Structure formats: structure tokens, C-alpha cells
């Protein structure tokens, strides 16, 4: 509007006005300024591509053992050496990317959806809805997160298996080890939502006081429309940052659960499981390749998602206009 009026006035040079960009272009322009965030994005994309393409990228199967080729150092046939059962380390790492790619985003999505929903409801409706949701999150906050996830995972495992064995469709899942994925995802998302719910609730509480919400209410717009069309989009930026950081956290949590032996079970490859499996051999200075690879990958991914979170924070934060 302002631009249109200016254009009509004689003598005003339109090209002096800042160019109008598509919001996405503008977002990318701001995001790109943080170079480490771009590096993080590249690492994350590599992770996604590896996870999707693991059957084609991995030269060997992740279960293929060769007892004649145990604990081999890196060579052309085995770029990252072999483990204690003669399995190709590189292939297992690639397959583990698929495990992480299934578990971490699902756990994050479920956790975030729950957190958003509860946070929105608590913040918007207030009263007893707010009280119930906040009390529930109080209780969950009093549990140490990963320990609770551990307990849930250990409890759920056999129940899920029994339940899935009833149906013809899901029977093969049990044998192929997909149940563990479901267990870990459930455990992680059960622990993950309260923090986000509080964040969203705080956002909503401050947004509710804004005149545009009052206006919407005065116009008689139904509650669900106000919630999802007016409040949610405005509360999103910090949530998006939290999601990105949460992805790194979920990858780490999955690795930690598997590290403790309660998560993804061997032979399904998981970086955490590989770290604990190779841990005993790490003490052997003769096999250092078993030390570096899985650890570095987990570290690099957590690193990448932290940087992406930083970049998103700068790109989405309107107070930080440069």
C-alpha cells in the first residue's frame, strides 16, 4: 500500500525503496549470513540423503559377518575397517543413519505436536485446562528426562511386540526390529513435550494481550480459528528454533539410550549402540578406527543442528533486523 502511494507521487524514485522480496527469499538471505548455519544445513542434508539412500550407498549389508576379517584396519575393501564380528564399519554407519533418520524426526515431530497442542490450549483457554496441563508438566519435569525414557522404553518393548503380533500386517515388523524404533520414539516424545508446551504457553500468554487478538475475538471469530490462524503463526519462530535444537537432542538421546543397551537392539545398527559395542575395543590402541567414526558422526550432527538453530534464530528474530 505504502509503496503504491509513493509510486504515484511525482519525483519519488521508486528504485530507492528497499526491494520487495518473497518472504522465503528474505528468510534465506538472512539465514545465509551465518556461514556456520549453512555448513550445518549441508551436514544435515548429507545425513538425510545417506539415511534415505543407505541400501544403495552401503557396500555391504549391516548384518554381513566375515569372521576371517575381524577388526581389520581401514583398507580399500573396508574404508573404515571392520568390527569385532567382521562387519563392514562403513556400511553399518550408513545404515545407522537410516535408524537415526527414522527415530529422531519422528520423536521430534510427535513431541513437538504434543507440546504445541498442550501449550496452545493451556495458554489460550487458561483456567482449569491450563492448570491440568501445567500440573502434568510439573510431574514430568520432576522426572529426570532420559531416565524416565529409559524406564518407559524398557516397559513398552514387550507390550508393543505382543500387540503388533496380533495383526497380519504388523507381524513382520516385530521380526525385523521395527518395534524398537516405535518404542524409542514413544519414550522420547513422552519426555520431550513439556518443555515446548511451556515455551508455547508463555508465547501465547503474551500474544493474547495484543490488540489483534482482541479484534479477532470482537469480530466473533471461533476459538479454533483464532488459535490456529492467528496465535499459532505468531508463536512459531521460537518453536522452529526449538525443533531444530530438538532434532540434535533426539539424535543424541537415541544414541544414549542405545549406549545404555535399552533402545535400538543389535544387530540393527545405531551410532550409540556401535559406540558401546566398540567401547571395549577402544581401549585397545591397536584398533583406533573403531573409536573415531561413530562418535564423530554423532558429534557432527548435534553440532550441525545447533548451528541451524542459531541461524534460524537470527533469520526469524524480527528484533534483530540488520
Amino acid at each position, binding site marked *: 500500500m505504502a509503496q503504491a502511494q509513493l509510486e504515484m507521487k511525482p519525483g519519488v524514485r521508486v528504485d530507492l525503496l528497499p526491494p520487495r522480496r518473497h518472504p522465503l527469499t528474505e528468510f534465506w538471505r538472512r539465514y545465509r549470513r551465518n556461514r*556456520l548455519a549453512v555448513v550445518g544445513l549441508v551436514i544435515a542434508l548429507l545425513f538425510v540423503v545417506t539415511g534415505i539412500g543407505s541400501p544403495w550407498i552401503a557396500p555391504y549389508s549391516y548384518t554381513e559377518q566375515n569372521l576371517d576379517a575381524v577388526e581389520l584396519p581401514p583398507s580399500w575393501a573396508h574404508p573404515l575397517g571392520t568390527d569385532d564380528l567382521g562387519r563392514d564399519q562403513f556400511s553399518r554407519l550408513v545404515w545407522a543413519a537410516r535408524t537415526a533418520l527414522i527415530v529422531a524426526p519422528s520423536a521430534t515431530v510427535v513431541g513437538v505436536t504434543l507440546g504445541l497442542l498442550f501449550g496452545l490450549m493451556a495458554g489460550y483457554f487458561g483456567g482449569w485446562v491450563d492448570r491440568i496441563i501445567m500440573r502434568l508438566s*510439573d*510431574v514430568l*519435569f*520432576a*522426572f*529426570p528426562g*532420559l*531416565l524416565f525414557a*529409559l*524406564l*518407559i522404553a*524398557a*516397559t513398552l*518393548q*514387550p*507390550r508393543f511386540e505382543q500387540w503388533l503380533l496380533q495383526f497380519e500386517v504388523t507381524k513382520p515388523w516385530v521380526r525385523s526390529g521395527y518395534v524398537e524404533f516405535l518404542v524409542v520414539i514413544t519414550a522420547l516424545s513422552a519426555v520431550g513435550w513439556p518443555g515446548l508446551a511451556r515455551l508455547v504457553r508463555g508465547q501465547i500468554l503474551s500474544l493474547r494481550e495484543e490488540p489483534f487478538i482482541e479484534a479477532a475475538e470482537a469480530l466473533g471469530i471461533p476459538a479454533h480459528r483464532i488459535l490456529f490462524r492467528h496465535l499459532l503463526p505468531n508463536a512459531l519462530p521460537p518453536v522452529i528454533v526449538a525443533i531444530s535444537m530438538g532434532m*540434535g537432542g533426539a539424535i*543424541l538421546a537415541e*544414541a*544414549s539410550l542405545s*549406549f*545404555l*543397551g*535399552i533402545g535400538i537392539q543389535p544387530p540393527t545398527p545405531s551410532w*550409540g549402540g556401535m*559406540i*558401546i559395542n566398540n*567401547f571395549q575395543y*577402544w*581401549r*585397545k*590402541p591397536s584398533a*583406533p578406527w573403531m*573409536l573415531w567414526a561413530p*562418535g*564423530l558422526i*554423532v*558429534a557432527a550432527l*548435534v*553440532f550441525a543442528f*545447533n*548451528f541451524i538453530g*542459531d541461524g534460524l534464530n537470527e533469520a526469524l528474530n524480527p528484533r534483530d533486523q540488520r
Partner: protein
Amino acid sequence: MLKYIIRRLLWAIPVLFAVGTVTFFLARALPGGPFDFAGDRSLPESVVRNLERKYNLDWPLWKQFLAYWWDLLRGDLGPSFRSRSLTVNDIIKQTFPVSFQLGVLSLLLGLAIGLPAGIIAALNHNTWLDYTSSFIAILGVSIPNIVLGPFLIWLFGVKLGWLPVARWGADYTEFYLGFIPPMTTKFWQHAVLPTITLGTALSASIARLTRASLLQVIREDYIRTARAKGLRERSIILGHALKNALIPVVTILGPLFAAVVTGSFITEQIFGINGLGRHFVQSVTNRDYPVIMGTALLYAVLLIIANLVVDVLYAWLDPRIRYE
């Protein structure tokens, strides 16, 4: 204020009860029982029955549940099914101090590195010093314990052979006042690597928070006023900026400490430390119900206290905040 604290403490009672209830039924829902195995062998059916009778596991669940709370009210956390000579109270008395020491040492390390790093970064905003320390900080946040711990073991324990790699707290010693260890060389040798493992991420997040908070404070009007008055830069930073910038840092120490103590179980697992977290993990695998319950409740108490301390500290440090 006092009313607020009392109300929060009263609210802690139902929260603890909820935590205990959820843990109780989750633990009982674990497949198998505590006496399925003794070492590698399985026990004869009759022995298992006798053991179950001894620990009242043959009672109906609701009766066991009530009995647990009744014992708990009298301060008895029950026996350990696995370590038969120990009660849960004994286990906590022996292992919690070790987790506590690890937490305190890591927190001190985190502060010793994090505070100066954050301050230096903020005072040299947008210079190479700032970029370098911020980069290192995010690196430190990102390195997982399960990677750093084994790496330190490999480097200092195996390759260089300087330090012991396991069994901190394995030989039970009396602690002064219940939690202060004797400061022997052996203690420090055991403590160094786990402390670095846990403290690195801590120092990195303290540095990030300090930097962000100080940068925000420096832009405030009262700092400009102080400059306009012609105060020396040093007293501006130390007397005016830092004091206010540290408020969020101080308040986060509570939850950080709680997170370190409750989150140390992975580090304890890596270094074979005889701490509480390791017992929790083992008790889940062993189906040692009273130990699961005892540790979960203790952790809950810790977390609740930490959160309360933060809120109180916040109001005390920042006069703008008032609780009704």
C-alpha cells in the same frame, strides 16, 4: 515470599506422590521379575516363590503399593533385591555422595571456564575473540558425553596411561559430613576425567548464556548513563553491567546442577563410577523395584528443590519480580 515458598513446598507433595505412583506401576510393568536370574543361572521355581514371599511380592499390587508408601513415610526405602546385604538407604548413602561430588566438581569447572569465556566474548563483541570463543562454546555444547568420555579414556587412560579409567568410589570410604570425600591423590586422579566429560558441555552453555546476557545488559540505558557520568570502564563493567548480567546465569545454576547430578548416569556408566545413576540403570535391568523407586524419588526431590531455588533466587536478585 514465605507464603509462596510454603505453597510451592506443599505442591511438591502431590507431585512426588505422582512421580512415585507412575514409577511404581511402570517398574511393575517391566517384563520378568527380580529373581529370574542369579548370575547366569535361573533359580528353581520354589526358591523364587520363597524369595517373593520374603519381600511380600506375593501380595496384591495395591497392598504392596500402600505398604511402600507406609514404609517411605517412616524413612525406610526398602531392601535391595539384588545387593541383598544392602538396603536402598545404604545404597543412596554410599553412592549419592559420589554423584554429588561429580556434579559439584563439574559445575565448578563449568563456572571457572564458562564465566570468563562468556565475559571476554561479550566485551569483545564481533571481534575474532568473540567468534573464536563462541565457536568453541558451541563445539563444547555439541560434543556428547558418550563421545568425549571414551575419547578421554582412550587418550589419557590407554594411550598415555596417566590416569585410572574406572572404579571411582568403588572402595567405600566414610565421607565427611556425609558427602565430602577425603582429598587424596587417588580421589583427584579418579575425578579428573569424569569431571571434564561432564563439565565441558556445562562450561560451554554457561559461556553462551553469560555472553548473551551481558550483551543485552550493555545496551541498557543505565549503562549509557554510567558512561555519560564518566565512570571508568572497569567499574561500569564490574559494578553495573556484570551484576545484572549474572542474574540469569545464577538462576540457571540450580537446574544445571540438578541436570548434571541426574544426568551423570551416562558418565558414571562410561567410567564405571559407583554413583547413584549407575545404580538406577542397573536396577532397571535387574528389576530391582525398591532401588528404581528410591532413586527416582530422590531425583524428583532434587529437581523440585532446584526449580524452587531458581524461582526464589530470581525474585531475590531481580526486585522487579514479585510472587503473590
